[in-house]
């Protein structure tokens, strides 16, 4: 095991470059999948005709497929039907669709958990259905969604590593290249990468705990 060699300045910089890509992809996908998840979740909660049924099929299909397959499909299968996505775009699009489907279930569950009396009270005080949803149901539901949402975001961050299948230069991909330089580097590199993922995810969960206590 060659710790000094594995942690040379060049290798560390290479891993940091990877981490940067991982964070950019994760952050963008977190925002987009949250938006998609909210839209689908609300559509299914409000039982919007037609849209709700389409959403149901979409969510069930996507949730039951491997993310790895979706990432691969976005990058290598879609060009055959004329949709060409760049490396990063393909990864972000796949993560958004997959995690968005997961998040929509969290959102729907959170909204459903809000007491029916709240809706009736909102409607009786003269609010429209949309106003009730926006001002009464959503704020209460959101608070309950925070813990499952954060663990979904942590999953998303870990899942960015699956983009190695399309050779996106994120953390895991770059780690793989360093490992390829010699078996002496294997364990030190894997240790460091594990520590990086752990730290980022741990910070995320600590942040969410703080959010929860603030909201409670």
């Amino acid at each position, binding site marked *: 095991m060659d710790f000094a060699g594995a942690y040379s300045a060049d290798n560390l910089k290479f891993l940091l470059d990877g981490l940067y890509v991982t964070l950019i992809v994760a952050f963008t996908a977190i925002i987009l999948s949250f938006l998609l998840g909210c839209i689908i979740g609300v559509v299914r909660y409000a039982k919007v005709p037609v849209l709700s049924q389409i959403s149901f099929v979409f969510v069930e299909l996507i949730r*039951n*497929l491997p993310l790895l*397959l979706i990432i691969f499909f976005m990058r290598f299968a879609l060009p055959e039907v004329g949709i060409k996505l760049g490396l990063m775009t393909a990864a972000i699009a796949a993560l958004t669709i997959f995690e968005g489907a997961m998040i929509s279930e969290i959102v729907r569950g959170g909204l459903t958990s809000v007491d029916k009396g709240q809706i009736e009270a909102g409607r009786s005080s003269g609010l429209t259905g949309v106003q009730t949803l926006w001002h009464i149901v959503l704020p209460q539901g959101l608070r309950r969604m925070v813990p499952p949402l954060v663990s979904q975001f*942590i999953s998303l961050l870990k899942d960015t590593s699956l983009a190695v299948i399309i050779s996106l230069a994120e953390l895991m991909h770059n780690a793989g290249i360093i490992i390829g330089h010699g*078996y002496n580097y294997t364990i030190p590199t894997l240790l460091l990468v*594990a520590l990086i993922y752990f730290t980022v995810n741990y910070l995320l969960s600590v942040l969410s705990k703080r959010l929860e206590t603030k909201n409670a």
Partner: protein
Amino acid sequence: MQFSILTDYFGTYMEGFRGTILSSLLALAGSFLLGTLIAVFRISTARGLRWFGTGYVEFIRNIPLLLVVYIFYYGPSAFGLSLDGFTAGTIGLTVYTSAFIAEAIRAGIAAVPKGQTEAARSSGLTYVQAMIHVVLPQAIKLVIPPLGNQFINLIKNSSVLTIVAGLDLMYFADIVNSDTFRTFDTYVFVALFYLVLTLPLSYVMRVWERRLQR
């Protein structure tokens, strides 16, 4: 859509399909055993075991599955050993999933009333006996739905085996793909193979969960 791909390469697809099922089943059994052990560690009265259990779960849950698989695929080479992709991948899946199963089992055990343990202990059973004969059998019922969901995750997650040439569905699909050059069709059929497994399972799990809630 060229359906002849499905019929011409059905054998190849099935070989991968079997690999995916075998790996998922082995990892399910393994992670159930390992997860139970870790869950018992986590609620043990011995501080050292408790710390180990907590550390294990927290560490594994916060790193990507692929990293765990890499540890077992590339790690042994540092000691002059080697594991093939299927073995390393399945061990990686087992270790990764065991952390999630340990959490599910711990929650199940916590839901069994304390009086049960106390009654068992007062009737002369040791702690281990009380666990095996009284607490765990009751906890299992609550643990089955999350376990089922973990199995669905395992089937999907076993696709990472392809990254270490682990002879799963995705791996064999690559063989079909490099033969036909029709990526879109090839992988739509791959999706169908996954859905054949995961859709019925998710349906059953949902019905089961609803029944438990009643």
